[in-house]
């Protein structure tokens, strides 16, 4: 079966069952997935305009009366497809813990303080070249119950829409040089080291703002179509 979005590249994705991450054990299918041709349903996807995103939605440090505590950072990059083309006008959503490693979610019981000036949610629309930019604070590491002394490396959750419903990606952005990488089963669920390192942002001195904020670059590469035009298949 020739697929319009190549499947080979999805080998960069983690397996669905990864027992070191215990919650996968009961939440992954046991029967094989059914291979199917891509139809118009799979090859199209939601389109959202600038009305979706409000002016300060991409700055998580100005959403409350005061400034959040922590290390202010800029996170920016390009949304691209696997052929390296920028993906314009797509919605990028993010959410993260505060600088102490605490989420505002009602079920997060980690005994670290909440910050009344930080929700931890943001949105941006990529521009005509696929570029996006956020201002936020660096999230803290936090413990979780997966195994004894389990700690998540600091990360920012990203949710991205691409050209189609197939390009949909939810991932996590990590920070360079985190000592927790080798102990984290979620990070290590990605089998290929090069692919794993694509989830790690790079420190960007050139775009670090003097006297204001460090900058990290995180490019997001989504599934894309190969050269075959869709019109021949619809």
């Amino acid at each position, binding site marked *: 079966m020739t697929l319009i979005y190549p499947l080979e590249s999805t080998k960069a994705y983690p397996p669905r069952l990864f027992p070191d991450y215990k919650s996968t054990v009961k939440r992954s*299918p046991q029967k094989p*997935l059914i291979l199917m041709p*891509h139809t118009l349903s799979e090859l199209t996807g939601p389109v959202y305009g600038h009305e979706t995103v409000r002016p300060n939605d991409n700055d998580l440090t100005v959403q409350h009366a005061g400034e959040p505590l922590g290390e202010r950072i800029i996170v920016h990059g390009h949304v691209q497809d696997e052929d390296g083309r920028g993906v314009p006008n797509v919605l990028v959503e993010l959410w993260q*813990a505060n600088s102490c490693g605490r989420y505002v*979610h009602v079920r997060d019981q980690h005994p670290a303080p909440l910050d009344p000036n930080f929700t931890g*949610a943001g949105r941006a629309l990529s521009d005509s070249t696929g570029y996006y930019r956020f201002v936020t604070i660096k999230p803290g590491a936090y413990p979780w119950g997966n195994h004894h002394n389990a700690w998540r490396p600091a990360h920012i959750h990203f949710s991205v829409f691409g050209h189609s419903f197939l390009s*949909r990606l939810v991932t996590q952005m990590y920070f360079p040089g985190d000592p927790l990488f080798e102990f984290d089963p979620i990070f290590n669920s990605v089998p290929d080291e090069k692919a794993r390192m694509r989830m790690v942002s790079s420190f960007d001195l050139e775009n670090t703002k003097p006297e204001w904020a460090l900058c990290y670059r995180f490019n997001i590469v989504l599934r894309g179509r190969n050269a075959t035009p869709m019109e021949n298949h*619809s």
Partner: protein
Amino acid sequence: MTGLTPSQTVGPFFAYGLTPNGEYQWNDVFTNNLITPDVTGEQIRIEGQVFDGDGAPVPDSMLEIWQADSQGRFADPQDKRALPNAAFKGFGRCGANPKGEFAFDTIKPGQVPGPDGKLQAPHILMAVFARGMLLQLYTRIYFDDEAERNAADPVLALVPADRRDTLIAKRSGNGKVYRFDIRLQGEGETVFFQV
């Protein structure tokens, strides 16, 4: 070629960012109600519950749907046929409640072409995200009152006959509600597609 950015789990704490639903200081851009005032077609509701391999509900799951309008048109310029009807966008998102339940208010989609140009049976695409899922699962929602079209559907035909039932939403109640449960694993496991 550039390697893909790997997928990672949505984790347990996505709600305040992706499905705040009035519970957090953040607004929703997507909801589980796809119906726009000007939409045409039959208004329906899809209700279901997500279960894990032990049959336990999955409260920290999120469902997204993507569908054509009642004429079978997608609200995406990549669909080069006639324009979609109205302001209908065809995309919805719902965070499961503590019982793992979800619901979507939408319209019954029309037929869209399949790989060989023949029409597919009416269907809605669904992506399932959850803590414990390193990447989303894709499934399709078909309708039990479309038996004839389902029988001719090229995608359903790829599914072993004894498992097709997991993809068919069952009309019940007041006639407007379809039931579609998702079993991630084990007995009655929902059919998921490699797409």
